[in-house]
């Protein structure tokens, strides 16, 4: 998978036609073969853009910054990224007319060691669902049968106290740097509920229980919205297995809310934000 040339051409064309102010893409990080996101503001920088299977980050996150807000932006999205973009559009965080979206029919990206990322092996929506221009051949795989994440499956086998002990260890390692939050395209609140001065509901301390509060609240606020791009995991300096929280939510929602997958349908706000007659109500006495 290498669309470097096409993306450079598209970006040059967009700048030449004056259609965009900023282009968000990937560049080489300058010291190994990994890539980092880049915001370029003119045609002279177009040659820095690359796109290969090392283009791991979700660039939709950069629509939250002052460099892109209220500007005309071109950006590259893979399947998962496009789903989060869909949610950003639905939740009125960005305006579609301000965007030029280069969609990728993604074949999966790889980690530092060159192995295909776990979320890519499980991916059900590889082609971008929002785009002005689509690169690559659509896989047209449609929706595949849902496979429960193997890590979740392993954890589910363990007895409850063992699971609790495992997560205690996970939360203990959290340093409350909030990188997960900042790296998530869907964490765009003006002020996070956990940080509010009046938020008596939440434990803000930098302790295991504080981390538990913060991460559980965070994962529930993303339940039915998380698109499994794993930006949070890539950003976490403590290497916490954050996908466990999200994948568990995802599988429960997929099972109970008519096979709901976040961000696939434009205008869909997610399982928790709409009422349907088919919603399960067996928990109501």
């Amino acid at each position, binding site marked *: 998978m290498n669309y470097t040339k096409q993306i450079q051409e598209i970006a040059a064309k967009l700048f030449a036609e004056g259609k965009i102010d900023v282009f968000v893409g990937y560049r080489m990080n300058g010291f190994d073969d990994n890539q980092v996101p880049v915001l370029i503001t003119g045609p002279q920088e177009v040659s820095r853009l690359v796109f290969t299977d090392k283009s791991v980050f979700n660039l939709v996150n950069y629509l939250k910054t002052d460099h892109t807000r*209220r500007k005309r932006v071109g950006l590259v999205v893979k399947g998962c990224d496009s789903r989060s973009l869909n949610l950003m559009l639905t*939740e*009125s*965080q960005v305006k579609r007319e301000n965007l030029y979206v280069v969609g990728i029919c993604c074949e999966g990206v790889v980690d530092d060691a060159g192995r295909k990322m776990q979320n890519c092996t499980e991916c059900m929506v590889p082609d971008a669902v929002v785009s002005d221009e689509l690169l690559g051949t659509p896989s047209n795989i449609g929706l595949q049968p849902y496979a429960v994440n193997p890590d979740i499956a392993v954890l589910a086998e363990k007895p409850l106290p063992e699971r609790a002990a495992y997560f205690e260890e996970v939360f203990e390692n959290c340093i409350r740097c909030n990188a997960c939050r900042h790296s998530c395209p869907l964490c*765009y*609140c*003006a*002020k*996070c*509920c956990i940080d*509010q001065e*009046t*938020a*008596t*509901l939440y434990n803000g301390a930098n302790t295991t229980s504080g981390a538990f509060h913060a991460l559980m609240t965070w994962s529930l*606020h993303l339940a039915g919205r998380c698109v499994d791009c794993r930006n949070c995991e890539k950003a976490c300096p403590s290497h916490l297995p954050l996908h466990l929280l999200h994948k568990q939510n995802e599988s429960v929602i997929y099972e109970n809310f008519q096979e709901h997958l976040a961000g696939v349908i434009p205008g869909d*706000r997610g399982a*928790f*934000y*709409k*009422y349907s007659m088919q919603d399960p109500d067996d928990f109501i006495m």
Partner: protein
Amino acid sequence: MARVGVFVCFCGANIADYVDVPQVVEEVKRIREVKFATEYKYMCSDPGQGMIRDAIVQHKLTSIVVAACSPRMHEKTFRKALSDAGMNPYLLEVANIREHSSWVHQKDKKAATSKAMDLCRMAVAKSIANEQLHEISVPVTKRALVIGGGIAGIQAALDIADARIPVVLVERSPSIGGKMAQLDETFPTLDCAQCILTPKMVDVASHPYIELIPYSEVIELQGFVGNYKVKIRKKASYVNFKTCTGCGACWQKCPVKVPNEYNMGIDKRKAIYTPFPQAVPNKPVIDAEHCTMLLKGKCGICAKVCEKGSIDYTMQDEIIEREIGAVVVATGYDMWDPAPYEEYGVGRFKDIITSLEFERMVSANGPTNGVPVRPSDGKVPKNVVFIKCVGSRDEAKGIEYCSKICCMYTTKHTILLHHKVHDSHAYVFYMDIRAAGKGYEEFVKKAQVDTGTTYLRGRVSKIYRKGDKLMVRGEDAQIGQVVEVEADLVVLATAVSAPKDNPELARMLGISYDKYGYLSEAHPKLRPVETAKAGIFLAGCTQAPKDIPETVSQASACAAKVCGLFAGDTMKKDPMVSTISNEYCSGCQNCVKVCPYGAIVTDEVPIGYGSKELRTVAKINEGVCQGCGSCVAICRSTAITLAGFTDPQIINEIVSI
């Protein structure tokens, strides 16, 4: 520091029998902020309220907890007691130790007492964080909507309009009149239904305060009591009512024949039709499902014969919007389909008919000119068997409840049969004869003597054919034997059932319905015409099966409620509404989507102090907000606060147990 007063109620024996009230009082006295706690037999009575008023003054209390029944019952009563003592009424907190404790834990007094203590502790903790709130005034739209143009809707509309309040009456079918227009005579006086109903129908059409919208359906209701917005879909009638004179040339020439709903499908009507000659409005509509011009583009006869040029095949459905302040729901009932009674041969034997079919046959304007005939061969029946409780009081095949009107209308049918076919004989299979009502028992007794009807107490087990007769086999429980009756015609007194689209209507209106589909009243005894949603009232069979006198009474009661609601120019409203902090709102608009009242809109605010750049945030219309809290729960930024249920109040409650 807060000074809380706690008042624990015995509720006679309702609470005191299962909760140790003195122990609860002792327990709450141990809470630091509680400066006064006491108990009384009936807290809601005048002496009970007096205790609260006195204690407020004497002990300088800053908030009050009443541990008694559900706040739905007496919150208003106690708030008023607080006001009377010069205290802000919203400093009251009710701990529901009756429905939530004593009534549900009757087998375990210790546990019930312990739970009552928890509930009191929570209420005390919450009340400490209570804030003074002030009622909101909202303007009232003085116009009522009546849904359904049967006798209930007609009566309600006339009574409201007579008080010079404008009414919008929406009827689904082309004419008002409902089921009553299909009846021949009415029990117990044998008045002709048409003679007493049609003048009222004409009154509706000519009343200056009634806007009649026939052939229409309510599709959306938004807003709140006093300020609803309704959307009505007016179905395309393909006839311009303004120019149509109702001359009838069109339906005389129309070549398409369709089973006539008004006559229960016994005869045919045309594709362009008025339901019955006395219809109001007396203008025809085209049945789009059967008209060949609309279906295939061939025919057009009605347009040719119409001298006024009133036929318009291009007419489209139209959406009408009205602002209204109150709603009367009068959607009536359906007749229960007796198909599950396979042993009676329903559907196999033509000579088994339902009571409404019989009613149409004996009606003077019916398909057989008032003479009952056998559908199979058109002969006049001599022996007629009436079977009661078909579907009613039958848990196995039908519905558990008694349909209330069948005993009386079957009695009426025996009389009508006797009048129309003098040498006939009627048999009635019954379970009980329920004739509670003014003049009802006398009516039944007289009918039995006059008509010589044979009453057989017992259920019918089977009906089979013998020649051209039907053999009805059943039990006569009074002699303890199986009997067989040879019948020319069998009439099934089918149950009254809720309109099948009531649940959908209820969801659209935001009111509740029971397991049968009847709409639920707010209180079965003390608030029988109100629903749990303010400003929506129920009239007639849509609430439960009932006869015409009861329906009319209920409709008039609804009218009185509507007039009472519109007595002032503004309405006071609870201040328990949400507010949004612009600072925290991220503008995702999830709250806009979840708000069931349409109370949230978007607003543009500067991105920072003095900035000219704007961003979108949500804004709550406090007049529309009903304080349900859906937006508070959905808001990830916790930007929304609900007065009376703030985070500190809720956290205090949680922490206290």
